[in-house]
């Protein structure tokens, strides 16, 4: 109810922020908060960190941050050794890393191959897990994760 009120107050589409709770494993379980930028906007991860910090989540709550997966749009540069995603309409960038799982490795290789074939200037959409965003409260909130930001690629597609 409070969230709906916030959505009305700030003209936010309530469908763009959702708390998903998967099957209940025990009394304390995982939850995933999905969020999406307004059309034409980009979400700043520094502000995201600040926003979470402002909740004053403290130790002893059996809670913490498991992971943050993001999707960003831009163009890839830097070659296959250390590719980076230069964010469209921004000076920001992510260093892109290959993950350990089969799916992550496949997504990374597909990205490299696509860029190799089609060139670096095309616009792509990369999804990945942000490195360093994980841990228990409050230690995960005490300082900003390191920069440059790195994401472990979990998905890739050429932007339409």
């Amino acid at each position: 109810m409070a969230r709906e009120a916030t959505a009305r107050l700030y003209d936010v589409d309530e469908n763009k922020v959702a708390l998903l709770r998967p099957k209940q494993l025990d009394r304390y379980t995982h939850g995933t908060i999905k969020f999406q930028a307004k059309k034409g906007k980009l979400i700043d991860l520094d502000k995201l960190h600040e926003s979470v910090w402002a909740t004053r989540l403290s130790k002893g709550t059996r809670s913490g941050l498991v992971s943050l997966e993001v999707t960003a749009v831009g163009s890839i540069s830097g070659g296959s050794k250390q590719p980076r995603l230069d964010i469209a309409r921004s000076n920001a960038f992510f260093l892109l890393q290959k993950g350990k799982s089969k799916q992550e490795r496949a997504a990374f290789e597909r990205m490299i191959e696509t860029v190799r074939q089609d060139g670096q200037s095309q616009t792509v959409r990369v999804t990945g897990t942000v490195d360093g965003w994980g841990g228990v409260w409050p230690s995960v909130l005490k300082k900003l994760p390191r920069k440059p930001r790195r994401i472990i690629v979990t998905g890739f597609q050429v932007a339409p």
Partner: protein
Amino acid sequence: MHTRTLTFALGLSLLAVSSANGQVISGAMTVTGVEMH
């Protein structure tokens, strides 16, 4: 749902309208300790 988690979600709601120098178009943050009743 635990109050802290609701606060957390509210913070993200506010965030969605305050982006200025951002990097991402969407995200999914997984947290532990969502208290079920």
